[in-house]
């Protein structure tokens, strides 16, 4: 591709004018700068790539966390998960988060989370997360789990 064809949308430019226009755009785009990458960091695998204002993946997780937070907040303002019965103190006290209530147990819980009036399924794995024994792993169970969750370096109550 020749210089003159680079600007096919412009009319009747001679080659030098085309190069001039490209040079002007190149300067505006900072084309002659070096890419801000540290080779040593790149080889270590911890790349400091040029910052991007929006990372869609991050937004997706932030949105998911916001939805869960909102749902839990709403649940706390209403009677328990459609049954109308809040968890009693004995039920909450009986909750024991598996494996110390750590991140791995949290992963199990999220895998089992099926919403109200759905079968808990995966017998032996998800049944342990059905804290109120109503046959599903819903927000009521999530709140009970939250109360028992102690973090990765704490003993269970």
């Amino acid at each position, binding site marked *: *591709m020749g*210089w003159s064809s680079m600007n096919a949308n*412009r*009319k*009747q*430019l*001679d*080659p*030098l*004018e085309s*190069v*001039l*226009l*490209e*040079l*002007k*755009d*190149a300067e*505006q*785009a*900072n*084309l*002659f*700068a*070096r*890419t*801000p*990458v540290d*080779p*040593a960091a*790149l*080889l270590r695998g911890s*790349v400091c*790539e*040029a*910052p*991007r204002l929006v990372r*869609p993946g991050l937004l997706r997780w932030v949105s998911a966390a916001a939805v869960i937070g909102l749902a839990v907040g709403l649940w706390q303002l209403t009677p328990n998960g459609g049954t109308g019965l809040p968890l009693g103190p004995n039920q909450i006290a009986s909750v024991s988060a598996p494996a110390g209530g750590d991140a791995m147990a949290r992963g199990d819980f999220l895998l089992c989370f099926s919403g109200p009036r759905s079968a808990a399924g995966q017998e032996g794995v998800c049944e342990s997360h059905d804290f109120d024994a109503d046959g599903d792993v819903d927000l009521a169970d999530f709140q009970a789990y939250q109360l028992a969750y102690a973090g990765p370096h704490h003993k269970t109550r």
Partner: protein
Amino acid sequence: MPLQPNGERPFDPDPSHKPDDGFLIAGMLGGDSAALRELMNRYDRLVRYTIFRQARDRCTRDPQWLDSIASESWSGFVRSMQRAGEQPPKSAAAYLARLARNRTISAMRQLPAESDPAVVEAGDDLESMSVSLDDPLSELTRIEDLDTLQSCLSELDDRSRALTGQLEAITDRRWREAAEALGLKESTLRSRWKSVVERLSRCLERKTGKQFAPGDDRSDL
């Protein structure tokens, strides 16, 4: 010639003094960041220019976007080489140019249509991406031409340089309209512009050996 840790030495035209790309890639895979730095010295401009040519409008609107895609291209290159192991590409230049082009296309497709008012122009960019890549080495010479033109511009007198600053006003309009906008007589603008173009063309020809001969005169459509 041993690699310098800072990798900042100027381009050496004697091939016998340069480690070839395969040697550098092998060094890079062995964890030698100086080898990667040398590859970046050689080809970063090619990567950036490939992105620029594929998405020129986008790059001029958002220089950070160009940095970002170039950065992704380099990290993609390192990961690919690490996966490829002992079978590096025959031409690192061609591989990098292809990688940068594909990254650009992918990034352009991910631009949010509703939030970006430039989406129509982005669509134009995507259309132009069907153009195949030129030979990477010829792309490098085109970047050098731009460099040379920069130095030729710096040799112009102030008045002529100021006129090149009005480039778009001159090339996008009829001579009469451009002259009015710049407060000059049409004949004055024509003769001054012709003089500037001729001097720049001569300078480029002298420094690159290529022909940039201007036409008789820009027609007035």
